[in-house]
Each structure stands twice: as structure tokens, then as C-alpha cells.
């Protein structure tokens, strides 16, 4: 039972910020106004009321419904935004659909009673049905003109009602893209590890080749590492070692058996140990070591002997000097005694002079006690007449001191100095005697040591130095004798060592090969296997989605062919009417390249490449109208948003005729901004029609022409 729209209520929706009621008549409803006056807002309002979150998928033209809804949401201006449509069925039933500021908030009432049904469901409508047979937005017509085949495909599939399948295809694409990103990340990680391994392998191979080259220079190849090769590698080394033992009458060592390349490192180590042990245990080496030690000791003893001699020489010199200055020790002792005696005498004289002085001082003190002028005498020192006591005391005292004490004191000082000198010399002689005693003890010890080394006591007149030198010379001679023997032995050792070196290189080669094998095993490590597993899973899902996409693409193509076949007749009829050419050859849409094609004679031609904008607009329009005429839902209205676009006036007239005819069967709401098309719509056919005129946009809110702008 088809429903037509009787009223649209708008508030806060897109251009309509204030509450607005629009009564709509049955038949042809023309929404006329200049650009940006709100025509599209009126035509989009029922769509907003009908599709909400449950329909946010698929595309309407080149943009998705989600983008469209989101764009409309951004153009909602009040929290109290409401869009409501009142619909009336042919049998008088009423339907009320209201949607609030959020997509999920809607009310559906049938005959005043709330029904638990989504708005689209109330009209037995699907998203496919809505976009293919109810609502024709401007961008659909524009998208037909796109040079991008995928855009044309989107529009054509939408216009025949395959939007749901297309939406599913897009879901697969999105999922595939997301998984693809994940797989790329994993692949990137694997690539990095792979690059690292590749680098390491290249490096390792270089090392391997270097060692391999060294071996080749010695006439050996990598094959030497096979069990037979290993045996022939080891043989020269063992042989050289045995020869060495035979030559020097050493017991042949027990060496480990080598059967595989893995046992080589152990063998090489063992031979090295044995060799150093044999070398260390050889008697010549021991003797050489002893002689080197002996020579070292002799050098020490010679140095010690020289040191004692030097010290003795110094003592002798010091004695000579003392004797030259002071004579013998006896002379010194005698002189000291004499000086001490003299010193005692001088001291006695000084004591006596002191006593005399003290007596004079006492006499003078007595004179001082006498009254002034009592004793007027001539000064015996300066011959002054009639001097007083003080003058006399002064002169007498100084003269007496000068005459008696001073020479005594000077003499005493001189004797004291001489005495000190003599005593010092005597002490020095005592110290020298002490040092000499010490040196004597050291010398005895040295003689004992040398005697021990010499193996017999030294004769009393035997020179220690000569003995030491003789011993050193003997050691040197013995070392020289040993040298020849040792050199020959070193040669033998070198031979073994050379063989060992070859073996060492073989071991290195083996190790390098092992490392290379280890690198080869890295990709098999569990953690990397897990990463690969993850990648394999991601790829598997991507593969699955790709296969699904491929299948779906095929399904869409087949479904399109079936649907289009159903619409082809009607499309061509409408197209010929719109063109005003009944002879125009049949057109169809090629689902391979998504082109509009026709046949001229036996040849097929792509019209997409030769049609102008108006022609393509006409195709899209006719496809939509054909689809709308075949529709079987309850939406008894068509919403065409500015369908003429690039059509000329003649086309406008013919389109107006078609729409007027269609308006007899269902309500047709069409918006336009061109007066010629308005006139054509107003005069076409005999149908009820209504014109809603919109005033130009005044930067506040959309309004009808009859309304006055708000302050």
C-alpha cells in the first residue's frame, strides 16, 4: 500500500535552523529556489528520517551513506533537532516517522500508535530500494560522468538496486586492507630479520673463503674435512711429534684418535699441551734454565763484592785524611788530655779573676755609701783629677775586666774548639772501625756463598773476583754448547707447530662452516616459525577475503546483468522519450568496463566516451526512473534533487512531461533552481501540482519566500 508524504517537519536540520512545517500535496511537488536556499535540505529530510545508523553502509553516488549521514549530523544545529515526516496511505492509513538529533533515536507511529519497526521497514523498503527507486541525490548524476570506472560501477550498481552487495564488497575490501596492513607489518619484520641473516651469511661466507684460500695455498681443499681427509690431515702432525720424541729419546705421548672433523679442536689442543710439556721436561732445557739462573746469581755476587771493596776504599781514604790532620790515634788522645788540662787551668784563672772582681765591686759599693766629696781622687784610668765614686767605679771595673778576664776567655774558647776537633776525629775513627767490622762480616758471608757455589773453600790468597769471573765464564761456555742442541730441537718443535697451525686452520674452517650451518638454522627457530605462522594466518585470511571479493565481484556482475536485463526495455523507452528520438539505437551498460554502450550496425560503441554531460545525465536519470517504476515497496514518493543538471530546455520539457505522467501514479518531489524547468513542470500534463518557493539564503536560516526574514 503506497504512502505519500503529507507533511515534513524540520527543526535545526541543515539550513533549517527554526521549526518549519511543510505541507505536501499528492502529485507533483516542485521545490523551487535559488542555490543554497535549502532545496536539498527539504529533499534530504525524509531520507534522514528514514535511514539512520542501521543503514550506515553502502554508497549514494561517490560518497558513502555513512559520510552522508555524518555530514548531515555536522549540519544539525540544535540539540532539539527533529525531522519528522507524515505519510498517508492510499487506503487512508497514516504513518508518522520522527528522528531526533541522534541517528539512533527515532519514533514510528502507524495510525497514532507506536510500532516497533524501523522506518525503512515500515515502508517495506531496503537501502537498495531507497537509493535505487526513491531518492536521487545530485551526486549520483555527477558520478555517472566520472572517468573512474569504479565510480561508475558504484553508481550503476546502486541505480539497479545492488547497493547491499556493494556494501558487503566494501566491507571485504576494508577488512582485507586492515589485514593487509597487519600482514605488511609482519612481512616488514620478517624482511628485517631476513636482511640481517643475509648480511651475516655473506660475512660468514667471506670468512670461510678466506680460510679456505689459506688451506688451498697449502694444497688442501675443503674436502679435507671428510673422515678420510681428517685422518690424512692429522698424520703429518702425529709423525712430526713422534720424530721429535725419537730424536730426543722422549717417551711418545698418547694422542686421541681423530675420526671426524668435530674431534679436531680437541686433538689440536691436546698436541699443543703435549708439546709444551715435552719442551719443558727436556734436560737440556732444565740445564739451560739452571745456567741462566747461576749466571744471574754470579752477577749479583760480583756486584756485592765490588760494593764491599768500594766501601773499604772509602774507609781507608778517611783514615788517611784524619792521620794527615791529627796524627795517630795515640797523638789524638794525648792532645785531648793536654787540652783538657789547659782548659782546667784557664778555668781556675778565670775563677780567681772573678773573685778579685767581685772584691773590687764590693769595695766600690762601699765607696758609694760614702757622702759626696768624701774621697776626691784622681782617676787612674783617664787621669782626671777629683772624680767622684761613680766615675771611679766605672773606669776601674772596665779596666780590670779588660786586663784580666778577656784574654782568659778567648784562650778558653780556642782550647775548646781544638778539643772538639780532636774529639770529632777520634769519634770518626771509632765509626770507621765499626764500619770496617761490618764489612768484614759481609765479606766473610760472600766468601761462604762463593765457596758453596765453587764447591770448595777458597784459598786465603785466592781472589774472590777471579773465582766469580771464572765461574761465569764456565757457565757461558756450557750455554754455548747447549745452544746448538737447543736450536736443533727448536727446529723439530717448529715442524710440529707448523703442522699444528695447518690443523688449526682446518679447525677454524670447520668452525666457520658450523657457524654457517647455525645461520642456516635460524629461520627454523621456534620464535621465527611463530612469526611465520602469524603471517601465514594473516595471508590465509587475506586470501579468503580476496577469493570472496572475486566471487562477490562476479556475483555483482551477474546480478547486475539480470537486474539490468529487467530494466533495459524501460530504460530505453524512457531514454528515447527524453531524447525525443524514437529511432535512437538501444543502449546498455557493459558490466566489464562500466560503460554505456550501443550498437551501430554490427559494431559496438562506447557511448561513455562520446556522450556529453547532458547525455550521461539523461542515462542516469532514466535508469533511476526505470528502477523506480519497477519498484514494489510502499514508498509512494520519489525525491529527485535537481535532476536536470546539464540538460537543455528541450530535455527539460520532455523530462517535465515524464515526471508529470509519473506523478499520476505516485508523489514526485523534485527540486530545481532553473525557472525554465519550473515553467515546464508547471505546464506539463494534467496533474495536481504544488510549488514550494524558497527565499535566498540570508545567513541565518532557510525560509519560504512568503516569510519575512527574522530579525
Amino acid at each position, binding site marked *: 500500500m503506497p504512502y505519500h508524504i503529507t507533511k515534513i517537519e524540520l527543526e535545526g536540520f541543515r539550513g533549517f535552523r527554526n521549526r518549519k512545517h511543510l505541507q505536501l500535496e499528492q502529485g507533483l511537488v516542485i521545490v523551487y529556489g535559488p542555490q543554497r536556499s535549502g532545496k536539498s535540505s527539504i529533499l534530504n529530510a525524509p531520507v534522514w528520517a528514514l535511514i539512520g545508523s542501521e543503514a550506515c553502509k553502502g554508497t549514494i553516488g561517490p560518497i558513502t551513506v555513512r559520510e552522508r549521514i555524518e555530514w548531515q549530523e555536522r549540519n544539525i544545529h540544535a540539540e532539539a533537532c527533529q525531522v519528522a515526516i507524515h505519510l498517508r496511505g492510499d487506503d487512508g492509513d497514516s504513518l508518522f516517522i520522527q528522528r531526533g538529533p541522534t541517528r539512533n533515536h527515532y519514533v514510528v507511529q502507524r495510525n497514532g500508535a507506536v510500532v516497533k519497526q524501523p522506518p525503512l521497514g515500515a515502508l517495506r523498503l531496503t537501502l537498495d530500494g531507497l537509493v535505487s527507486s526513491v531518492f536521487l541525490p545530485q551526486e549520483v548524476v555527477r558520478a555517472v560522468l566520472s572517468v573512474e570506472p569504479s565510480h561508475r560501477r558504484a553508481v550503476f550498481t546502486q541505480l539497479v538496486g545492488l547497493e547491499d552487495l556493494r556494501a558487503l564488497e566494501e566491507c571485504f575490501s576494508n577488512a582485507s586492507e586492515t589485514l593487509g596492513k597487519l600482514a605488511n607489518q609482519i612481512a616488514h619484520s620478517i624482511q628485517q630479520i631476513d636482511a640481517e*641473516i643475509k648480511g651475516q651469511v655473506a660475512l660468514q661466507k667471506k670468512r670461510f673463503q678466506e680460510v679456505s684460500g689459506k688451506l688451498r695455498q697449502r694444497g688442501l681443499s675443503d674436502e679435507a674435512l671428510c673422515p678420510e681427509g681428517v685422518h690424512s690431515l692429522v698424520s703429518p702432525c702425529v709423525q712430526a711429534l713422534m720424530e721429535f720424541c725419537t730424536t730426543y729419546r722422549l717417551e711418545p705421548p698418547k694422542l686421541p684418535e681423530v675420526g671426524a672433523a668435530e674431534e679436531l679442536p680437541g686433538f689440536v689442543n691436546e698436541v699443543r699441551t703435549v708439546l709444551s710439556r715435552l719442551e719443558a721436561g727436556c734436560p737440556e732445557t732444565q740445564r739451560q734454565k739452571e745456567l741462566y739462573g747461576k749466571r744471574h746469581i754470579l752477577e749479583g755476587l760480583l756486584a756485592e763484592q765490588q760494593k764491599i771493596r768500594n766501601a773499604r776504599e772509602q774507609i781507608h781514604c778517611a783514615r788517611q785524611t784524619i792521620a794527615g790532620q791529627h796524627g795517630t790515634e795515640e797523638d789524638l788522645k794525648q792532645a785531648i788530655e793536654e787540652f783538657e788540662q789547659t782548659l782546667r787551668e784557664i778555668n781556675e784563672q778565670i775563677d780567681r779573676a772573678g773573685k778579685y772582681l767581685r772584691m773590687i765591686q764590693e769595695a766600690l759599693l762601699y765607696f758609694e755609701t760614702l757622702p759626696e766629696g768624701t774621697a776626691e781622687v784622681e782617676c787612674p784610668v783617664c787621669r782626671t783629677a777629683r772624680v767622684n765614686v761613680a766615675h771611679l767605679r766605672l773606669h776601674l771595673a772596665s779596666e780590670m775586666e779588660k786586663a784580666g778576664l778577656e784574654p782568659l776567655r778567648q784562650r778558653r774558647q780556642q782550647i775548646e774548639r781544638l778539643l772538639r776537633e780532636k774529639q770529632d776525629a777520634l769519634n770518626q775513627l771509632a765509626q770507621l772501625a765499626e764500619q770496617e767490622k761490618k764489612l768484614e762480616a759481609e765479606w766473610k758471608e760472600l766468601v761462604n756463598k762463593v765457596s758453596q757455589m765453587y764447591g770448595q773453600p777458597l784459598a786465603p790468597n785466592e781472589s774472590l773476583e777471579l773465582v766469580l769471573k771464572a765461574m761465569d765464564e764456565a757457565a757461558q761456555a756450557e750455554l754455548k754448547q747447549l745452544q746448538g742442541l737447543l736450536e736443533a730441537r727448536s727446529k723439530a718443535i717448529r715442524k710440529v707447530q707448523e703442522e699444528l697451525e695447518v690443523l688449526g686452520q682446518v679447525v677454524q674452517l670447520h668452525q666457520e662452516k658450523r657457524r654457517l650451518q647455525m645461520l642456516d638454522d635460524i629461520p627454523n627457530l621456534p620464535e621465527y616459525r611463530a612469526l611465520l605462522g602469524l603471517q601465514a594466518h594473516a595471508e590465509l585470511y587475506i586470501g579468503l577475503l580476496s577469493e570472496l571479493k572475486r566471487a562477490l565481484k562476479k556475483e555483482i556482475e551477474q546480478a547486475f546483468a539480470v537486474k539490468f536485463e529487467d530494466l533495459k526495455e524501460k530504460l530505453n523507452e524512457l531514454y528515447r522519450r527524453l531524447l525525443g528520438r524514437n529511432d535512437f539505437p538501444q543502449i546498455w551498460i557493459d558490466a566489464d568496463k562500466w560503460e554505456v554502450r550501443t550498437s551501430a550496425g554490427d559494431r559496438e560503441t562506447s557511448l561513455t566516451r562520446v556522450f556529453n554531460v547532458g547525455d550521461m545525465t539523461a542515462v542516469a536519470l532514466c535508469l533511476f526512473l526505470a528502477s523506480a517504476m519497477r519498484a514494489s515497496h510502499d514508498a509512494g514518493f520519489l525525491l529527485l534533487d535537481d535532476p536536470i543538471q546539464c540538460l537543455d530546455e528541450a530535455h527539460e520539457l520532455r523530462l517535465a512531461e515524464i515526471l508529470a505522467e509519473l506523478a499520476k501514479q505516485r508523489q514526485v518531489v523534485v527540486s530545481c533552481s532553473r525557472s525554465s524547468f519550473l515553467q515546464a513542470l508547471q505546464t506539463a500534463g494534467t496533474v495536481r501540482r504544488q510549488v514550494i518557493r524558497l527565499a535566498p539564503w540570508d545567513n541565518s536560516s532557510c525560509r519560504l519566500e512568503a516569510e519575512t526574514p527574522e530579525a
Partner: protein
Amino acid sequence: MKPSVLDEIVRFRQTRGEGPAGKFLQRLLALTLLKAGYPVAEEYTVEGPDLLVGQFQIEVKTTTEEPFTIQDKDAQDIQEATKKGKIPVLALLECSSFRGWTVVHAQGLTRGEYRRGELALRRIPELEKAVNEHFDVVVETWMPLLNANPNAAFDQMDQRRRMGQWAP
């Protein structure tokens, strides 16, 4: 693929160039299949399939590009194989230590660009496993000869394959 084998292939590619190396790799794959016990029947021709192995008609791709391209000629070969009742197969070499050959059913694949991963669902596990298990050994066996004298190796490889032998 073993990293050391991969290193050999990369070096060989660098010295010989992508095209000639591709021919060698195609032969190495044939010998690998032979070693794995598959009957490799057809001669190599410029036109037509790369390899015919039992019921499989194998198209070999040794390019390192990702995504790789299925050309018109390849797509045509795939279609013809289906018509003849053969199973069209695509063998893709990936130069990675972690991957080697990917062997997939090619039926229904049309001209266009493909990523190796998106063909995962089409894998032929037993064939892929057989190829990857034996390829390393075959490369290690032939590579010294290939490096030393490529032309002689080329002839010898064909000769051995005709005799049903995989080793020199």
C-alpha cells in the same frame, strides 16, 4: 630456503641478470620436482607453459617484485590449461630466508597484479612442501657447476632431466 642457498641465488642473480637467472631457476625447479619424485615431461618452450609435471601445468615466476603481475600471455596459458583438463599452477619464488617457493592453483586467475599473500588460499601444500624440501639440495649440488661454467651446466641440466636424473 636456507640462508646460504639464498645467498648463492642472490649472487647468481646479481652476476647473471634477472632473465638468464630465471631460466636457470626454472631448470632447478624442474630438477627439484624430479628429485621429489614427480614426472617432469615437457621440454621448455618459449610459447606455452614453463613446465608440465603430471597433471600440473606450471607457470614459473621468479620475479622479486611484490605485487607481481600476471600478464595476458600467462592468463591465456592458465585458461588453456583448464580447457585441456590440466591443473594450472603458479610457482612463485620468494627470495627470503623464511620462504622459498609458493605453489598455488592458478585456475580463475586473470590478468592483473597479485600479492603472494592473497593467494594463500590457493596453495597446493603437498607440491609446495615437496619443492621446498628438495630445492636447497638441488641448488647446493648444481651451484658450483653453475658458477664455474654456466653454459655447460645449462646443457647438462637439460640432459640430466631428460634422463630422469636430478644430479650432475
